[in-house]
């Protein structure tokens, strides 16, 4: 299986475009002269469009489910081969039509095109998939580390400060948007219709500002910078020796079109030894030095690999097998070799199937990055809570006032209209955005509030016996259990009386919810079971009582 959605994508198509152009411009004798390069670029681009057409058709047919499931490798190989055959056919057609030099027969070109595409397309897809998986794996690791960080009490103080800061900014934004309303003079009240217009504009402005502000922050915080990815890959093993195999296998038939066999063998040997030497030293050094030094080592190694053409030129001239076009082609070919070897090495290094890669990746994520991400995550959570509360309180109130004002206009009731406008002004001025500040570690208060909320529908008694206060994350998890337990007892067992007990033991808390519902064989809906499985890690039970009702027991770590 290869690539998933990367098997056919505009990114892989664009990634291989320079390779296609390079092969045509630098290997076709028709474009050997520098003055012909522009035409060669144009022709290769048109030919590559044919490749794109075949890939697009494949993406809409045999590979249409590639986003859900990875594509079988043989399918990608065949699709890639056919796509590049189309390119070769277009190129041949152009050369014949313009009566330009074209040594290879059509059948040979088609075969060679198929081999090119059958190799390039899967490799490109695999490369992009590796980067994508690596990126995702890295993000997951960061989130995991952030989750650990967010559970600490030390972050709670910062979160509180963030909440206050965000609320102040929102209040200021509301006041700015409501300037027109606040500026209305009591002694010269505008018409109700103007008041409606102002209220509508105020509501839209506040919603727009809040939404843009919220989502802009969320988008910014959710991206992983490409330098972080590269840095993580470099620290493990920046070069993969296996990449030499396809490069050599691929390069030999290409170079045989330019040089005699002996020269090609020696050139490949030189390049391979040079690459092994440079990459071996780099791979050995990066894990032994500091992060900054490792990046420098990597940069130097990449530079030396890109300059491998110098060695090729030296050896080719020494062998007396200078290429017909001078040193240009060897230098360009070796430049391509260096690029492919470097990129492929990064891709191979990002393959996270190996355990040691994940461990190294985890080690490469600095504490500072975790701290920043933890703060950003908490800030996003606070913003989301505030936005929800704001919508539920302030925006709804504004809508209600707008409806009252419209009703007053319809009925011609100026007094009611003035009252509505007064209420709207009060909305803007009053600190309506201050949501109820609850102590996230006070399980007693949270449970008592739940019991009070259900009063009238079901009677709930609460008994808590905790030796010390719980962390916010433990409190949230316990609250989730209690809410789910109450919901199940009321909605599925029609319970009238519920008792909630929470006992604290040294490292755990035990939550027991007893109800008098009518379930003969109590069972939790699937989602409830999953919640308890995830929170209690299997230490929970739901047991029927002899006289009716059930007992839900959940044990969880603090």
């Amino acid at each position, binding site marked *: 299986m290869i690539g998933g959605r990367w098997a056919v994508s505009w990114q892989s198509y664009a990634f291989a475009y320079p390779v296609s152009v390079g092969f045509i411009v630098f290997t076709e004798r028709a474009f050997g002269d520098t003055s012909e390069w522009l035409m060669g670029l144009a022709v290769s681009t048109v030919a590559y469009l044919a490749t794109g057409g075949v890939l697009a058709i494949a993406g809409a047919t045999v590979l249409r489910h590639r986003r*859900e499931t990875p594509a079988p490798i043989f399918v990608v190989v065949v699709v890639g081969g056919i796509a590049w055959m189309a390119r070769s056919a277009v190129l041949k057609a152009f050369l014949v039509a313009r009566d330009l030099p074209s040594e290879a027969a059509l059948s040979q070109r088609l075969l060679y095109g198929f081999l090119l595409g059958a190799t390039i397309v899967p490799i490109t897809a695999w490369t992009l998939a590796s980067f994508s998986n690596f990126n995702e794996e890295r993000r997951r690791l960061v989130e995991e580390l952030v989750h650990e960080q967010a559970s600490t009490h030390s972050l709670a103080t910062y979160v509180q400060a963030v909440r206050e800061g965000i609320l102040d900014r929102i209040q200021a934004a509301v006041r700015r948007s409501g300037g027109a309303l606040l500026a209305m003079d009591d002694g010269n009240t505008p018409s109700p219709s103007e008041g409606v217009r102002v209220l509508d504009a105020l509501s839209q402005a506040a919603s727009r500002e809040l*939404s843009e502000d919220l989502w802009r922050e969320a988008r910014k915080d959710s991206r992983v910078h490409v330098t972080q990815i590269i840095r993580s890959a470099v620290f493990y093993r920046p070069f993969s020796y296996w990449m030499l195999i396809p490069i050599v296998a691929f390069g030999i038939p290409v170079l045989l079109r330019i040089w005699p066999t002996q020269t090609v063998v020696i050139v490949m040997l030189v390049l391979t030894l040079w690459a092994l030497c440079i990459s071996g030293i780099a791979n050995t050094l990066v894990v032994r030095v500091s992060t900054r030094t490792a990046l420098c080592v990597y940069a130097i190694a990449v530079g030396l690999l890109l300059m491998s053409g110098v060695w090729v030129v030296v050896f080719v001239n020494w062998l007396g097998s200078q290429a017909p076009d001078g040193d240009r082609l060897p230098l360009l070919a070796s430049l391509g070799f260096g690029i492919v070897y470097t990129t492929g090495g990064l891709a191979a290094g990002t393959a996270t199937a190996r355990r040691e890669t994940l461990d190294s990746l985890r080690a490469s994520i600095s504490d500072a990055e975790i701290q920043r991400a933890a703060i950003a995550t908490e800030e996003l959570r606070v913003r989301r809570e505030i936005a929800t509360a704001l919508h539920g309180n302030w925006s709804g109130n504004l809508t209600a006032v707008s409806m*009252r004002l419209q009703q007053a206009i319809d009925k011609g009731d100026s007094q009611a209209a003035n009252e509505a406008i007064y209420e709207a002004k009060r909305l803007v001025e009053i600190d309506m955005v201050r949501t109820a500040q609850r102590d996230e570690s006070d399980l007693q208060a949270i449970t008592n509030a*739940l019991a*009070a909320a259900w009063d009238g529908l079901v009677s709930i008694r609460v008994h808590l016996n905790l030796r010390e206060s719980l962390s916010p994350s433990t409190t949230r998890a316990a609250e989730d259990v209690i809410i789910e337990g109450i919901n199940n007892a009321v909605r599925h067992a029609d319970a009238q009386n519920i008792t909630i007990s929470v006992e604290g033991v040294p490292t755990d808390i035990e939550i027991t919810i007893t109800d008098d519902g009518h379930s003969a064989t109590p069972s939790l809906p699937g989602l409830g079971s999953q919640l308890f499985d995830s929170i209690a890690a299997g230490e929970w039970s739901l047991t029927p009582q002899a006289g009716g009702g059930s007992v839900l027991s959940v044990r969880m770590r603090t």
Partner: protein
Amino acid sequence: MELPALGARVDHNERMQRTRVLLVEDNDFTRSTMAASLRAEDCVVVASVSSAKEAVVAASDHDVDCAVIDLHLGPGPTGIDVAHGLRKADPNIGIVLLTSYEDPRLLSGNQRPLPEGAVYAVKNDVRSTAQLREKIDMAVGKADRPVGQGLGYVPLTDTQMELLRMVASGLTNAEIARRRSVTERAVETALARILRKLGVEADSGENSRVLLLQAYYQLIGGPGGR
């Protein structure tokens, strides 16, 4: 809790003509504003309350034709729970659930179905108090209800709704996968399917999770549109 606007002085004929409404809304300002609006629409607001307990007491103390209930009443029972509680005491009471949630499953899973005959009114679709009055008339049988209207439904399965709520609550894909005992790739695939069902296309430069959150907030009537 407000005192009822009209008590025993309402004569029999007047009671037959005007619908007697119980208003259940936890926000003080919205509750008072809606009560005033409903009175202007010739309804008798017998009580406007903010909690389940007050709603049950008010329904037992007064003759109520229809209860207009907010779906989200804060932590604890939802408006659907209150509706079932009121129906238990009075099987004939009309129910209007007035909410910004396009679908009750967006609020929470594990809910009971709407009481029979209940009208689910989304605030974004109610442009005036006259339209609210129409919903009340539907609930008490004074007006016909078009087929399929007033049921509150977003075309997502229960599992997809659960995933959407989990994303909106801030859980990562890894945590969602852990809770549901599936792979992260399965979660990603499921979220992508949800986005497509909601008609949201993610460009390559956009974060699909953020777009999913935006879609969620739009469905619950909040800010966050593209």
